[in-house]
């Protein structure tokens, strides 16, 4: 049995599956249920400053997009940070941490961007016995209009400044939660590191309008005829999250900075991918909000089974293994040639590969051979783009096969086994000429 336990900034948890700061972690009742279900850790829903709590809308807070059979693919929310009294939250955090000493319990915090506010709340959070804090610099809606959340996360200087305050006024590990609503994720990550933060977590939600009500001509969710952009999450955002995680993991300036991966984790496989890109833990919200807490069983057991199968004894054994393989386009091997291959025994003759290639790509797949409906790849036209693989409804029916000998019938060029990339390509005006 693989060992799923993690040690993230010294914070131990029995598995890498944490619940992200969100509605599922807003109060002791939910968090207790999560721990009972087997979640390794919880980031408590974001605490605000003392005083009258924030208020939420009383109309719908969520919108969604769906796949077949109403499978939820993306969720959008306009909920704010916790709308419960700070005292109540702090008391519950204290109690829950006492009852569940083996689980990670992180407090998410968002207070106004001034030193006094942070100075005021940090000792109170520290008193709860929480394992660490996560700075919510990510929420793109509502709080950002008040100069918090993403409004801070979009200014690297602010990130650094607040991280410094947190390290100064507390002894807790500090995780900076990053917003994806920026142009280059490396800058806020570098700022967090420069401010002394111990880790980053990402991504927070993406600014979004999930749909427009065509009867009322208003964004959804609609509050009395109006809508506001919300934060988008769920399976649909995973590719964006993976890229941002990878950018930080391979940036020489932030290399080695611990990362807690967030964004569309639904199954053990998603989690394994985040970990392979360097994450020490993953955080989950939408999947739990869709199916309930029980899914952690599938995640933990699935990850363990896969690790057993692959011979990984601990999370560390494969953590970050994919990072060296993330590179810039310019370093991809231009001598690597693949061609699509259609397995005629598996082909059900739907013709989607043909029409996708014919209408939108390279005219490299037949529809008719000898008067029969027949789909096969013409190697002299196939650029190896993989579109046919992606549109084929049958698993493994079309595969990309590497050409290892002979010539590429499309270019007529012999297969070159040497690695060569754009930086040295003759068509590149910036190419570096080999010395004579």
């Amino acid at each position: 049995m693989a060992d799923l336990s993690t040690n993230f900034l010294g914070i131990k948890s029995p598995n890498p599956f944490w619940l992200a700061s969100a509605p599922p972690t807003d109060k002791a009742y939910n968090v207790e249920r999560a721990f009972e279900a087997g979640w390794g850790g919880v980031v408590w829903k974001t605490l605000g400053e003392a005083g009258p709590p924030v208020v939420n809308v009383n109309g719908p807070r969520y919108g969604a997009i769906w796949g077949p059979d109403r499978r939820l693919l993306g969720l959008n929310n306009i909920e704010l940070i916790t709308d419960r009294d700070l005292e109540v939250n702090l008391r519950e955090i204290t109690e829950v941490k006492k009852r569940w000493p083996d689980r990670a319990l992180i407090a998410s915090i968002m207070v106004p961007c001034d030193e006094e506010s942070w100075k005021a709340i940090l000792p109170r959070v520290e008193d709860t016995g929480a394992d660490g804090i996560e700075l919510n610099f990510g929420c793109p809606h509502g709080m950002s209009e008040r100069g918090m959340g993403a409004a801070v996360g979009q200014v690297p200087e602010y990130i650094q400044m607040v991280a410094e305050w947190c390290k100064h006024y507390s002894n807790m590990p500090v995780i900076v939660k990053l917003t994806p609503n920026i142009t280059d994720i490396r800058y806020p990550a570098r700022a967090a590191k420069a401010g002394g933060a111990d880790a980053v977590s990402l991504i927070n939600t993406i600014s979004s309008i999930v749909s427009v009500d065509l009867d009322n001509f208003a964004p959804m969710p609609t509050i009395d005829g109006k809508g506001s952009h919300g934060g988008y999450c769920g399976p649909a955002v995973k590719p964006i999250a993976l890229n941002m995680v990878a950018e930080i993991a391979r940036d020489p300036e932030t290399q080695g900075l611990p990362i807690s991966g967030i964004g569309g984790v639904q199954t053990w496989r998603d989690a394994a991918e985040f970990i392979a890109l360097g994450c020490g833990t993953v955080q989950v919200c939408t999947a739990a909000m869709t199916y309930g807490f029980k899914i952690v069983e599938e995640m933990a057991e699935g990850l363990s089974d896969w690790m057993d199968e692959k011979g990984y004894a601990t999370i560390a054994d494969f953590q970050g293994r994919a990072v060296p393989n993330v590179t810039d386009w310019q370093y991809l091997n231009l001598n690597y040639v693949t061609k699509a291959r259609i397995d005629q025994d598996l082909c059900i003759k739907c013709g989607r590969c043909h029409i996708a290639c014919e209408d939108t790509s390279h005219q490299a797949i037949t529809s008719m051979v000898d008067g029969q409906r027949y789909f096969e790849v013409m190697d002299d036209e196939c650029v190896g783009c993989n579109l046919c693989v992606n549109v084929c409804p049958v698993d493994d029916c079309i595969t990309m096969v590497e050409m290892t000998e002979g010539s590429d019938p499309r270019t007529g060029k012999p297969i070159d086994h040497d690695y060569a990339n754009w930086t040295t390509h003759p068509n590149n005006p910036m190419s570096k000429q080999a010395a004579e």
Partner: protein
Amino acid sequence: MTISETNDVKAHRLSSEDYIENFSDIHPPLTQHEAFVEADRCYFCYDAPCMTACPTSIDIPMFIRKIQADNPVGSAKTIFEQNIMGGMCARVCPTETLCEEVCVREIAEGKPVKIGLLQRYATDTFMEREQPHPFTRAAPTGKKIAVVGAGPAGLSCAHRLATYGHDVTVFEAREKAGGLNEYGIASYKTTNDFAQDEVDFILQIGGITIENGKALGRDITLDQLSADFDAVFLGVGLPGVNALGLEGENADGVIDAVDFIAVLRQAEDLSQLEVGRRVVVIGGGMTAIDAAMQSKLLGAEEVTVTYRRGQEHMNASLYEQELAQTNGITIRHWMMPKSLAVSDGAVKAITMEKTALDASGKLVGTGEMVTIEADQVFKAIGQTPDAAPLAGVSVELEKGRIRVDQHRRTSHSKIWAGGDCVAGGEDLTVASVEDGKVAAESIHKALMA
């Protein structure tokens, strides 16, 4: 074997609830969610095989995609463009031998997209929402066309012609329009008077007049029609039925299955219909299955379908055969009717001779006899054309049916024909609709040339 002396044929075999239950919709329509889920299964194939298999060439992937995109009304329009009787065809088409048989998901996993039910979802939604008629009639051309027979072929032809601005008069021998849709299809396939709703829908195009009670050869002649009109379309179906050729065929209880179905379809109160306790149906087509099923649903205890060849030769689709068997009907193959036992003027039993193929592949009796007690015997051994009304007009026939070219034009330059009455007719509603449509296009082209 002793033959029972009591001839047990009576009405009121069931409770009134049972009649309602038995004759309710056999395939309840898909709900919106079910339709979305099913529509999502469609792969939107390139040059889709289902479309090729459809006799009317409905753009199936497109109508399904429109359902997916929550545009069922637009989906129905896509269907109606090719098949104005898309609603009825959704109910009666043997989809398992047409579109669904070639669905790539049938090939991939044995579970085709439920095209028939999706088509019904779209067309029913269109009807329920009381949409304006999906087609606009072109400016009047002044051309007049006579259509004989208000069945699927005739109405399809009339609609397409009316769309082009021609004036169409439909002559129909029966009281109601609809042909076999109204008189010849099992009632659980078309509930709530759908056949008449569809006729009303078709007539919304305008320019079509139906004259009921006008039979060719009795009230009107082909000679006169071809003189009075610019063109004539014959969609007269197959008015005759084959006889068993056995002594006692006129006895009480020996009934043509098509008559039985027609009476049942027109019955206001099904509990008034008499049915035997033991019913034997002779034949292997859809009519045989429909008659057997409806006998069973009326309360017959033992229903047996006998067919002179094997299961694989039956014209009824495998699906229909299984439906019958699931409903407790026995299907016996390789036997042909030999004699009827009649007493007091009513049938008591039928004796069948077992059959086999001889060395040359010819069907022969084996000499082995089987007697099946029966209070009613339904004959469903095929319908026959009636050439008499065509006499005197130079319309060539082929085995008694009207010969047409690929445009459904007969040997007479002003006469077109389609549906079951033409040579090569397929005995399918959808094929008749296609015939009418093709003929209308040809007539339009000829008249506007």
